[in-house]
């Protein structure tokens, strides 16, 4: 019995056609790459990562008398390094831009832009995107810059302010610690600290913007100080310090006295004794946990096995850590 020959497209060609059609219909406008003249591109003035040196200084050199000379030298060297690599192999990752009036504004890639200019390039590869929604633009810039070691706290704060403003104006709900944590994928404590900084008063913000404080934990501790007298003292001391302040230890030393602190010296701790009755332990646990300041930790202690001494001990250890965390922010200096 003979069978009639049937024809069809080769399987690999068929799957190629199917995949191509699918990719085109779902990704329109996602990959617009081009070569663009540097003249047509402009940096975003609100990009959180501000270069410490100006275009003029890049071209004409730095003044050794400049108070920020060291910082600028570092920045210039880093840009020169990038510029050298661009001379050799060009820009490997396109600069992302969007059309803004007659020019194209940078979303990400500002250092590549300046380095290309230093390298004497006339045009650079760009990826052209539609103008991003304000919130997404600020978020992208955060993601792009946050892992850079040289991003200052002031730059991070400015980016955060833009993110929070864009969040509020885009009807995304309340801009809370929780929202910040979910958005940026950071730990609870980091979110808490950033949030404290966002709500800091002008004095703290000024110290951050002056570069006197570049440490998030320190900034948050300063925000949390309740003793206004002590706080003002610390602020004036930081303001008058020549360099960036990284901890309050030297303030305590310079004040000539050990500041009133409930923190014990390193390596020391207090033993809280032993309890033999699990029910008593449970009751004590509940009393402590009922403190309003521990509200946000309560969900962590929902499933304790009260029949296991090991589990109870572990829960107490964890509770003490939370208590220290919750109460330490009120710690007076």
């Amino acid at each position, binding site marked *: 019995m003979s069978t*009639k*020959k*049937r*024809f*069809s*497209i*080769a399987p690999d*060609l*068929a799957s*190629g*056609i*199917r995949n*191509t*059609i699918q*990719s*085109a219909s779902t*990704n*329109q*406008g*996602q*990959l*617009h*790459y*081009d*070569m663009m003249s540097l003249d047509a591109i402009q940096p975003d003035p609100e990009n959180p990562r501000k270069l410490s040196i100006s275009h003029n200084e890049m071209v004409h050199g730095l003044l050794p008398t400049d108070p920020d000379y060291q910082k600028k030298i570092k920045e210039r060297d880093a840009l020169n390094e990038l510029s050298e690599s661009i001379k050799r192999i060009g820009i490997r990752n396109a600069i992302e831009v969007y059309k803004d009036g007659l020019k194209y504004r940078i979303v990400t890639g500002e250092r590549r832009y300046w380095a290309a200019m230093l390298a004497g390039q006339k045009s650079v590869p760009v990826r*052209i995107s*539609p103008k991003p929604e304000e919130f997404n633009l600020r978020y992208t810039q955060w993601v792009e810059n946050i892992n850079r070691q040289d991003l200052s706290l002031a730059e991070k704060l400015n980016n955060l302010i833009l993110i929070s403003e864009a969040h509020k104006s885009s009807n995304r709900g309340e801009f809370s610690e929780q929202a910040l944590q979910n958005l940026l994928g950071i730990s609870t404590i980091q979110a808490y600290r950033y949030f404290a900084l966002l709500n800091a008063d002008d004095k703290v913000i000024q110290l951050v913007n002056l570069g006197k404080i570049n440490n998030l934990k320190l900034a948050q501790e300063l925000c949390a100080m309740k003793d206004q007298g002590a706080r003002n003292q610390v602020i004036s001391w930081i303001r008058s310090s020549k360099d960036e302040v990284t901890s309050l230890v030297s303030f305590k030393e310079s004040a000539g006295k050990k500041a009133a602190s409930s923190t014990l010296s390193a390596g020391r701790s207090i033993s809280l004794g032993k309890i033999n009755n699990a029910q008593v332990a449970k009751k004590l646990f509940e009393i402590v946990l009922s403190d309003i300041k521990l509200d946000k930790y309560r969900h962590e202690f929902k499933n304790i096995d009260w029949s296991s001494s090991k589990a109870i001990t572990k829960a107490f250890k964890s509770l003490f850590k939370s208590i220290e965390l919750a109460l330490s922010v009120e710690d007076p200096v």
Partner: protein
Amino acid sequence: MRIIAVVNNKGGVGKTTTSRFLAEYFSIVKNERVLALDMDPQANFSNRYLKMEIDPYQQEGRIPPIHSNYDPSSPEDKDWDGRSSIAGIFFGEMVFPYATYIPTLEISPSHSSKLLLAEAVTREEVVQKVYDQLSKFLALDDVKDSYDKIIIDTPPSKGPVTISVVRAATDILIPSIMEPQPMEGIYGMIHLWKSETLRRPKNNPLNLLGVLPNSFDRRGIIHKDHYDSLKNEMPDYVLESKIGRRLIYAEADAEGAAPPSIFMYPEKNIARQEILIACQEIHERMNAHVNQETF
């Protein structure tokens, strides 16, 4: 203004014939103002409306005839040799479309050697210029105000000239024979469509009108099987209409053919009906996409 590019990097699949049907459908049947562009160095599309001449410097190539508006004694024309082709856009020349026997159809013909030169550029910055040149020309107010449809016949390649056409187009149509080799050409073209789609903003899409089965032979099963198979892979992009394999199309292409257009055949003529149905389907597919000002 809609810009329809007829593309396929395989030769002999019916690009020029399809371009001709579309140009004549929109000008004769729909009475729209049409500009035909011949971007193929072989100049067959041009030859159907103009008496192209042999290039004295390149005997196998074709150059446009002297333009009817050319007046060597006029000071305005003193820097012009009287010939104009669409290839001129790549060389900074003015483009003067030629009238045809159809009152609402004009053509800007091919110029073999110039198009071959544009197709052969390799220096990156020149290639980029070739890519954008046709878009710039078609964005001119003079062009946009003068025509309703632009129909572009392309060379059988995926080179710079074809890319410049794809960049300028609002719609592309892929004629193909339903056989294994031309299927590869379809794949090449939808890749080109995909690249262009990924780079275009959402408000200016490149509409893929679909694959038009050409020289379709209903007697065997090879064309039908390949058609079904293709339809299975890209159901929204294969036309229902099929252009059959008919001698009459070759006859209508011959010099001095009478009548000169398939749309001038009697209404009951089967070939005319077949082409009309295909053009109507293409027209409907164009209307299904949002009508847009391209630039």
